[in-house]
């Protein structure tokens, strides 16, 4: 699905790098007696160096499960049933790993530039991959940090495990450098987590994630527990660090308004599938999928004239028994005959693909086989307005 993107690139954003992570047809089930829960179904996307990809969706849409699958953190009953997660470290990074670590962390097959399938790494390879190449910032900093270790000790711990060649003094120097990077004074290294405010704790978890300069950082709702002012500061910090260190971010949140300020690309998930994918500018300017449209219009605006807030009636489906066809059709104001029978797949939102256009949407309204012409935005607005009046 990414072929068109690889040639076009996105103008005006920071995404110019090579593809770091290529997720192909990934599916994750939670196995249960009452029937398997299909948490993630057939998800494909690509992440470029320096890109911030926002994953948005309601709770239960599978966004966290997807992130944990990428980091191989899933435990039974969660099982990856299909798909590949291909990681392509840059040439320099490959060279650095074989020279610094004497080939110990190198790949078993000896091929240097072929991508690695994260889902097939051996335990030893996985230990080398995690945190070196991919780090995670969890939602609740209070639970992610060890309450009986100082912040400094927790950073040094990471360095001791992954960089045994560094001396004690070097590790502490690096820890001081890391906390300064995220905006904490190095004298706070001797503080325990309970002595820090929520914002400081979240900064500390970001510092730990940055310890080994990973290529990819997954952030699972890192600011949900924080106040707006602190949230804004953390987001600004993430943007600054991204520009400085060129890592890619997968940013998971249920708050689409955050992604509209932060992300380069946005993927909207519904019932385990990506229903719309595109650059932030396109998605904000013209959401195509009826669900994305509803999501974008379900929060009140702060400035400008008061607009009607629509919301999406109904509730997300039970993932054990997803409706046939498009899983959104029971809630969709525009559902027509094929929606309940045929599964829509991601396809370009417009027929004429210009260089700027690569918004993709999984909706029959945009499929010439079912709908003669794609709907205008006013039609989406009218459909929702009629639904709210009912």
């Amino acid at each position, binding site marked *: 699905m990414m072929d068109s993107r690889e040639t076009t690139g996105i103008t005006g*954003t920071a995404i110019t790098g090579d593809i770091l992570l290529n997720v192909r047809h990934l599916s994750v089930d939670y196995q249960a007696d009452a029937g398997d829960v299909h948490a993630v179904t057939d998800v494909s996307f690509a992440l470029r160096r320096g890109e911030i990809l926002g994953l948005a969706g*309601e*709770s239960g849409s599978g966004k966290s499960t997807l992130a944990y699958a990428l980091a191989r953190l899933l435990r039974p009953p969660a099982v990856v049933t299909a798909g590949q997660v291909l990681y392509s470290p840059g040439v320099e990074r490959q060279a650095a790993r074989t020279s610094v670590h004497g080939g110990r962390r190198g790949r078993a097959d000896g091929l240097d530039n072929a991508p690695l399938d994260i889902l097939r790494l051996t335990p030893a390879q996985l230990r080398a991959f995690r945190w070196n190449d991919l780090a995670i910032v969890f939602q609740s900093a209070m639970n992610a940090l060890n309450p009986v270790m100082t912040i400094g000790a927790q950073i040094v711990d990471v360095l001791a495990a992954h960089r045994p060649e560094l001396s004690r003094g070097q590790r502490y120097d690096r820890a001081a450098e890391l906390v300064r990077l995220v905006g904490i004074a190095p004298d706070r290294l001797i503080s325990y987590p309970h002595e820090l*405010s929520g*914002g400081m704790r979240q900064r500390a978890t970001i510092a730990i994630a940055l310890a080994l300069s990973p290529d990819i950082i997954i952030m699972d709702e890192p600011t949900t527990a924080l*106040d*707006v*002012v*602190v*949230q*804004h*500061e953390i*987001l*600004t910090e993430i*943007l600054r660090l991204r520009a400085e260190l060129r890592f890619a971010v997968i940013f998971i949140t*249920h*708050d*689409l*308004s*955050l992604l*509209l*300020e*932060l992300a380069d690309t946005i993927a909207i998930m519904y019932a385990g599938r990506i229903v719309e994918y595109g650059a*932030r*500018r396109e998605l*904000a*300017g013209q959401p195509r999928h009826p669900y994305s449209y*509803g*999501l*974008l219009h*379900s*929060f*009140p*605006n*702060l*400035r*400008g004239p*008061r607009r009607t*807030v*629509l*919301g*999406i*009636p109904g*509730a997300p489906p039970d993932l054990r028994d997803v409706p046939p066809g498009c899983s959104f059709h029971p809630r969709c104001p525009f559902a027509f005959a094929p929606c309940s029978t045929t599964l829509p797949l991601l396809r370009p939102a417009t027929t004429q693909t210009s260089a700027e256009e690569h918004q993709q949407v999984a909706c029959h309204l945009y499929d010439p086989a079912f709908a003669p012409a794609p709907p205008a935005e006013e039609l989406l607005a009218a459909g929702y307005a009629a639904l709210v009046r009912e």
Partner: protein
Amino acid sequence: MDTMDTFERVAAQATTPDLAHSADVPLLEARNLRRLFPIHSANPFKPRRAVHAVEDASLALYPRRALALVGESGSGKTTVARMLARLDEPSAGAILFRGEPVKLGAGAAALRAYRRAVQMVFQDPFSSLNPAHSVRYHLSRPLRVYGHARGREQVTEQALALLARVSLTPTAQFIDKFPHELSGGQRQRVAIARALAVRPSVLLADEPVSMLDVSIRLDILNLLLRLKEDGLALLYITHDIASARYFAEETRVMYAGQMVEGGPSEAVTQRPKHPYTQLLLSAAPDPEKMGKDGGLAKLPARGEIPSLVTPPSGCRFHPRCPHVMPVCRERFPGRTDLGGGQWTHCWLYGGGDGTEGAEHTTQTPAPASAS
């Protein structure tokens, strides 16, 4: 429905439909509430210390109107609601219900009489419902305790009516469910139905939607809006200032236990005067701002809420304020009326008495919104 009729009657007693007239008679009023939480120290010889959670909070709630209380966590907004719900006793100040001072520290019967009119909805629907009890039990307790229903049949009938009122349909299916079988939005509806079972005239909603998904938030807010139009007086506590604009007629902004600005929501959100309100507004995510060049707006100030054990002297915002002046460190400014019902406590606008800070009025800062 019986419930509705009674409710309308109570609401009609409490208010006259004429808004201008009812504006004179607040249903529930807080005057100069103050709350200190003493800190128990292990060392008996240390000086006694306290958390200054709320300092001088005043507000008034009117039928068919909503007041939004906005601020960061730790600003004391929940403590104000808890004092109004009489879950916490104020250290100083008075609560007036229908113009009569409420006798604080009176017995259980007086407390129950008060709570017959004032009910609260809590932030987290996952912990405010008892997991061991069904929806029927949660609704039947207030109905029986407050004598609105006797006997099993009457209770069931009224519980079903309550579920219909909060749009949990089909009601017969929901009444025997347990909290774990419900989604977050459905739980919050049950929590609201439980508060309504008492047939209150004042509803205190403490961040009723902050734990819910964005798409469900709006349903709950619309439900509360409908209840407001039915005659309830609402206190809406939130840290999301955009929803305050959408939801409430009046907005108050709290910082570190002090009320710093207030007035009609439209004026406070569109023409913020206090530097803290400006900071809060520029930090709020805003979908209107994006799409042009992306990126985040630069904040006029940094940092977090100060310690409330040893709060900063004078105006508590002065360590973070971009417009700080020497007088800010010395005394808390009085109230300055800005016209149109908007007021603020800030030396930049004269500090209340019109003489002390008069020379500073020319330095009116530009509103923080960059657009």
